């Protein structure tokens, strides 16, 4: 007797996972940089929101009004001061720098907030919708809706604005983009900043849905990476489907093997896909 809640929750979770991956995919697609600190930056936003919630009683979603611009600015700074200086002599540099930033953030959170698990608990975060024995937490539904909205917005941005087109062009042929008069450094910085805003949104909704701790960033990075692998780059649909597949893997894994093994199922799935189909199922490599 299949519990449909598990399937639906898996799909909804997939939306959130797609959102997590979106920022990573954007940065990687454009500047070929896998930001290993992506997960930790997401959690950074979550902790910020937690601070606002605890000390200012500010609702997490409202706090986005402050956090999103903050993360945008942070993204610009991060790119311009830490990643922009790459040379072909040392192609590993951005990766190592991102790794350093990741550890800085993890331990910063550990010191500031202790390893204890926390959650963004609001009046509605524990609310559930029930429909004919199908049981869906409100937060899951919210995540899904928000994810779809953001993906649509991003899609419109990438296809209808000059900057969005420039970002896509730069990811396809950097030199040609340069020849178009596109200031590639500016484009990269913007892409990074936008990725940070999406990460902030993902972070808030993650905090509403799951407990988090300073180490959660790693798990989110792996999920994001997994989604990008499955979905392939450059395809919004692919990213979405990749998210759904991993979301389902997690909920089904948790259902059949117990909640402690959930993440392990996800990790194994990522490794399996890497072993057999590293180009992903959709989109371009």
């Amino acid at each position, binding site marked *: 007797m299949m519990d449909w809640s598990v399937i639906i929750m898996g799909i909804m979770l997939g939306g959130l996972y797609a959102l997590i991956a979106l920022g990573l995919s954007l940065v990687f697609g454009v500047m070929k940089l896998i930001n290993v600190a992506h997960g930790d930056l997401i959690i950074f936003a979550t902790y910020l929101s937690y601070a606002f919630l605890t000390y200012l009683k500010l609702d997490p979603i409202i706090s986005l009004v402050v956090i999103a611009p903050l993360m945008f600015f942070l993204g610009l700074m991060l790119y311009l001061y830490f990643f922009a200086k790459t040379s072909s002599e040392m192609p590993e540099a951005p990766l190592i720098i991102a790794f350093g930033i990741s550890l800085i953030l993890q331990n910063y959170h550990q010191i500031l907030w202790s390893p204890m698990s926390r959650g963004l608990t609001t009046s509605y975060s524990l609310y559930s919708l029930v429909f004919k024995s199908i049981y869906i937490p409100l937060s899951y539904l919210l995540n899904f809706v928000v994810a779809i909205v953001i993906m649509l917005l991003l899609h419109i941005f990438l*296809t209808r604005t*000059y900057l969005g*087109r*420039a970002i*896509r*062009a730069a990811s*396809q*042929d950097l*030199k*040609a*983009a*340069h*020849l*178009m*008069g*596109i*200031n*590639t450094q500016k484009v990269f910085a913007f892409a990074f900043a936008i990725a940070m805003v999406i990460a902030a949104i993902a972070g808030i909704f993650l905090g509403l849905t799951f407990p988090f701790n300073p180490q959660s960033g790693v798990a989110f990075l792996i999920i994001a990476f997994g989604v990008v692998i499955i979905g392939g780059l*450059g395809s919004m649909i692919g990213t979405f489907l990749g998210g759904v597949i991993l979301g389902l893997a997690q909920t089904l894994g948790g259902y059949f093997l117990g909640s402690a093994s959930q993440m392990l199922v996800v990790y194994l799935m990522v490794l399996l896909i890497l072993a057999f189909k590293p180009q992903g199922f959709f989109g*371009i490599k």
Partner: protein
Amino acid sequence: MLIVEELDVNYGGLEILKNINLKIEKREIVALIGANGAGKTTLLNTISGFVKPKNGKIYFEGLDITRLLPHEIVEIGIAHVPEGRRIFPELTVIDNLILGAFPRRARRFVDENLKFVFFLFPRLEERKKQIAKTLSGGEQQMLSIGRGLMSAPKILLLDEISLGLAPVIINSLYKALKIIREKGIAILFVEQNVRKSLEEADRAYILEGGKIVLSDSCHNLKNHHKVKELYFGV
């Protein structure tokens, strides 16, 4: 309009160009001729800002542009259509063209320039919603040139546009160049095919081993003994 003065360009420690002096005026079609490795593409890359010269200066309409960044050079009106076309493979034809109008100065003239490009290359209008990588070689070259035109340039730099294309298509491309010239845009093109170059251009520079060895009107060059000897085997 464009003046290149005593340019020396090194690349990776090697001397690629030495003492280049070059001029382009309005409504001119100028050819840059030379064998492979003579430094033609490097010269174009230096003019468009991707390579910085060791010595020498480049002036455009009186302004010293030697140290400008590539995107700034596009902004002031020099468009470089690169070797190998380099269109954006996953974007549609129309997206490629609109992207060509990225410089702020060009955005006001998007519709006007688009009409012109479609007039020059009706094939592109037919295929405007097609993904660029599915176009044929000749169509991709048309797209690349069209994209360059969308930036509302005053000078168009073309690098080996006839590579890998059938003579019929090459002829139509060069016909289009003449129309572009009528619009007031100057053209500097790089070509390996000497005969074709001398036919299509007003003036030509012959580049050998990084130096300009001959420079004259094409009419004179056609009858120059050295040209006849080296390139036409007379």
